[in-house]
């Protein structure tokens, strides 16, 4: 696989619009023949707890997302993993800071990952942050 077909996505925001855009890129990228790795940290990770509260909108577009029939970001990330073999990792530091135990997070997430490993895997490919 060429480097350009490896996509690494860092998600740190907990706002609906950024989570949605990251999920759209991860899902479409993964089902289009790219190797997608997602790294969830900071304010983003809390939204991947089981039965997490809905994220707040950043602006008017986020409010529209909730009103319209846009596919939910969790559904899209899960589709990326299940249909496109995307690897969606919680940041191991964020897991520790939030005091999360195994079983607190969505079961379709991959194992927690450290930043050193994520950066090593991302080297040479496309990288995106939200």
């Amino acid at each position, binding site marked *: 696989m060429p480097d350009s077909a490896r996509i690494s996505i860092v998600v740190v925001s907990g706002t609906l619009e950024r989570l949605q855009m990251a999920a*759209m890129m991860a*899902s*479409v990228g993964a*089902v*289009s*023949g790219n190797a997608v790795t997602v790294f969830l940290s900071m304010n983003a990770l809390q939204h991947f707890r089981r039965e997490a509260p809905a994220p707040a909108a950043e602006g008017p577009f986020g409010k529209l997302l909730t009103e*319209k*029939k*846009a*596919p939910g970001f969790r559904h*899209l990330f899960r*589709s990326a993993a299940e*249909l*496109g073999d995307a690897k969606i990792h919680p940041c191991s530091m964020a897991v520790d800071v939030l005091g999360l135990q195994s079983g607190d997070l969505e079961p379709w997430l991959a194992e927690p990952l450290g930043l050193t490993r994520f950066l090593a895997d991302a080297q040479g490919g496309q990288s995106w942050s939200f």
Partner: protein
Amino acid sequence: MAGRTVIDARGSFCPGPLMELIARLKFAAVGEEFEVLSTDKGSASDIPEWLRKVGHELLDTREEAGVWHIALRKTK
């Protein structure tokens, strides 16, 4: 040959129609045909683009009364 399976994704937004199609294709046999119904204009161009990229066959695409009909065959 069995008829075309219709995937009614009307009312959904990008990338919902594409993801619904892919979920169905994953468990379909080679040669099966599908027709995606979508009211999302972006999906009407994105789905044919995705078919070209991954190698499935686009059979037909047309718009009727604000609904795009995208017909395709699974080829692999």
